[in-house]
């Protein structure tokens, strides 16, 4: 199930624990008619189940900055990082370069590895090639991006 399908379907999403909405299954209604919906009730949708495939290797991080704004990483945003995912060409990753964290697109081209920012508006963000002498590792793969469009 993709969260980011082009066609948007709207569903009620509720976290199961500890915020699950109570579902009344008790058919012994004291007065009046039982709800006609009673037979159709199902468990509430669980965001954890939807977004977190590997709980023991999933980490939440907050990100600030606009270097990945064209890749739908708003400023600020919450990222769901899954360390169990094998990094693939084109993934957005949380990488460590010379001891610093950065979130960029991981691009492999002809035996070279690049960390590519995505912000066409700002030319200061340039792709970085990973070369010998750099300490580089992929900390985890960005599995989901959560942003809140409503300004407080």
């Amino acid at each position: 199930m993709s969260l980011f399908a082009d066609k948007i379907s709207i569903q009620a999403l509720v976290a199961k624990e500890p915020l699950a909405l109570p579902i009344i299954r008790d058919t012994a209604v004291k007065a009046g008619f039982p709800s006609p919906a009673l037979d159709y009730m199902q468990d509430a949708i669980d965001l954890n189940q939807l977004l977190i495939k590997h709980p023991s290797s999933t980490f939440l991080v907050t990100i600030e900055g606009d270097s990945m704004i064209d890749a739908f990483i708003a400023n600020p945003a919450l990222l769901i990082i899954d360390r169990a995912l094998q990094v693939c060409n084109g993934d957005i990753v949380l990488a460590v370069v010379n001891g610093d964290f950065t979130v960029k697109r991981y691009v492999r081209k002809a035996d070279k590895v690049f960390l590519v920012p995505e912000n066409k508006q700002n030319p200061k963000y340039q792709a970085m090639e990973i070369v010998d002498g750099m300490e580089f590792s992929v900390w985890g793969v960005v599995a989901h991006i959560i942003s809140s469009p409503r300004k407080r």
Partner: protein
Amino acid sequence: MGCSGTYYFFSSKTLSMFAIVDCNNFYASCERLFQPQLEHQPIVVLSNNDGCVIARSNEAKALGIKMGAPAFEIQTLLEQHQVAVFSSNYALYGDLSHRVMQVLGRFTPAIEIYSIDEAFLDVAQFAFTDLSNYGSAIRAAVLQQVGIPTTIGMATSKTLAKAANRYAKKACKTTGVFVIDSEAKRQEVLEALPVEDVWGIGRKYQIWLDAHNIKTAWQLSNSNLAWIQKKMGVVGLRLVKELQGIACYDLEEQPAAKQGIMTSRSFGHLISEKKLLQEAIATHATRCAEKLRKQDSCCALIQVFIHTNAYRKQDAQYHGVLSIPIPTATDSTSELIQLAMSALDNIYKPGFLYKKAGVYVSEIVPRSQVQLSLFSSKDRGKEKQLHDAMDKINTLMGRDKVRYAAAGISRKWKLRQEKKSPCYTTNVNELLRIKN
């Protein structure tokens, strides 16, 4: 003496094989995971109250920083070498430990969580595959999925697996796995292991063994069994058999019901005021009650203690302790607080500078086995409802959101943790922040 014989691996009908997975410098590795600039840098983690060193990275070990060294004594050394110093962050370590154990549990359901950073696995079913490869796969999975480096030792007994692990830490730093699968390897490992580092050898036996010129684990494993049993009892006998590769201990998969629950803390600053001691004791009693309820049990004995700082020779010293038997075993916060308060009334003496206070509950029985006392006037049904509600609120909203007034709100006695890292994995307000 010739008791060593052939290694059990080859002579056994029912083959046993244990692995012990040990997280390398666990607390330091946890801190490093979220601060990668500390890779290759010396790190130390301090005990509660920032008192002394309880964990070191390899780089810090190389600087000669000793386990248990008081922080104030090595202050200059720490600054000189720009050692990264952390207060202990048990929320973080506990969460990452849990994640490591989850990953290990996917390799085999037969797992004994031995400590926060160690687990035994029963890998007998894999004994005829390449165990080294299997160990490497376990290591790689934990490193990738959680980010914690580990070392793995494997052998036909737990004690020998422990020895193999120790050996791997020194001799196989890159592969991180050592399997004792031949008599030659058993000898190689045990000859390199000082007898005092054998799992289960205490200081007392070390001195005694040393006096009998037994200095390595190899010598111990070749000792006369009858003599060992006479001198060290059946425990010693088992220990030697385990060193020979004969498994005497199985995995303990179900953690035994706790014998007692201790909640105690040193104070951030020395305190003498009774009010503050009361708050601390009430909070500890609350914690004990919560733990009891969590494991569905009740206690029939509560002990309260307070003491001064024995290291401050300039201060007058006092150690007060009192146990109170409880007629009907209980898990009630209010009852435990009440009892703890009256115990404190009896042991508190003004004019002393107190360093530590604690509550210990014991004689623990399952709640279902509690016999109601004839004279109990408590309305237990109502109280259970109250505690269930409190536990629920506190689980949901955070520890101590709802608490008994006795536990206070000033918390002047609470821990000093000046260098604690954020709770990256357990508190949404303290997530890792990335500037991008």
